[in-house]
């Protein structure tokens, strides 16, 4: 399940709802990863653009990849502004055993960082500034400029 929220995430509500939703599924391990906006470099917060169609297919491909391991994924992300010390991202895995859950959460979060079509902006003095130096080109980027 993938959910997008306007503004900061209600972390207790989401973690509790996901836990309850799988309470009868006989999973032995539940690992959420919660990402929170840090107060650094004087920013007031971050702001996010999300391109939902490709995010959805990326998420669905991940769900299909981990299904044979008996695992289930959930993810929530913010759209728009999220202030410092508020949370913008939760990824979670449920699985029967701990090893699959520990390995999956790491790979899922790292691939999210490298591939998910989400753009981050610093909020400073009311301005929204693309965090280009902290952004990662998606695998295969540069196609249009190539001499292929």
């Amino acid at each position, binding site marked *: 399940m993938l959910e997008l929220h306007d503004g900061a995430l209600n972390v207790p509500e989401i973690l509790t709802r996901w836990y309850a939703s799988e309470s009868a599924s006989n999973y032995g391990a539940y690992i959420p990863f919660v990402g929170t906006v840090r107060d650094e470099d004087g920013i007031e917060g971050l702001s996010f653009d999300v391109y939902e169609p490709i995010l959805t297919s990326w998420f669905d491909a991940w769900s299909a990849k981990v299904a044979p391991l008996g695992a289930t994924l959930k993810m929530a992300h913010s759209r728009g502004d999220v202030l410092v010390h508020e949370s913008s991202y939760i990824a979670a895995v449920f699985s029967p055993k701990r090893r699959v859950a520990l390995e999956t959460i790491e790979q899922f979060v790292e691939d999210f960082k490298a591939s998910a079509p989400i*753009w981050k902006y610093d909020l400073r003095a009311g301005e929204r500034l693309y965090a*280009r130096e902290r952004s990662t080109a998606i695998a295969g980027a540069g*196609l249009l400029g190539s001499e292929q």
Partner: protein
Amino acid sequence: MVTIEFLGPIGRPILTMEASTLRDVAEALKQDAEMAQWIDSCAVAVNDTLVASLDTLLSDGDKISLLPPVCGG
């Protein structure tokens, strides 16, 4: 006609043009000075699927998306 959308921080309105392959789109965008800073760092999707070849065939009504460097989380 195909449409070209510029996602995230590129901040340009949707473009429409005639194109039979992605190579035609590349040629057009390379002439566009404003796009020079983006073209080498953008991934490309056709109808919301990422593609890896300039020979990708395009049909009338296709949507091409340019995805600049990402940073979710």
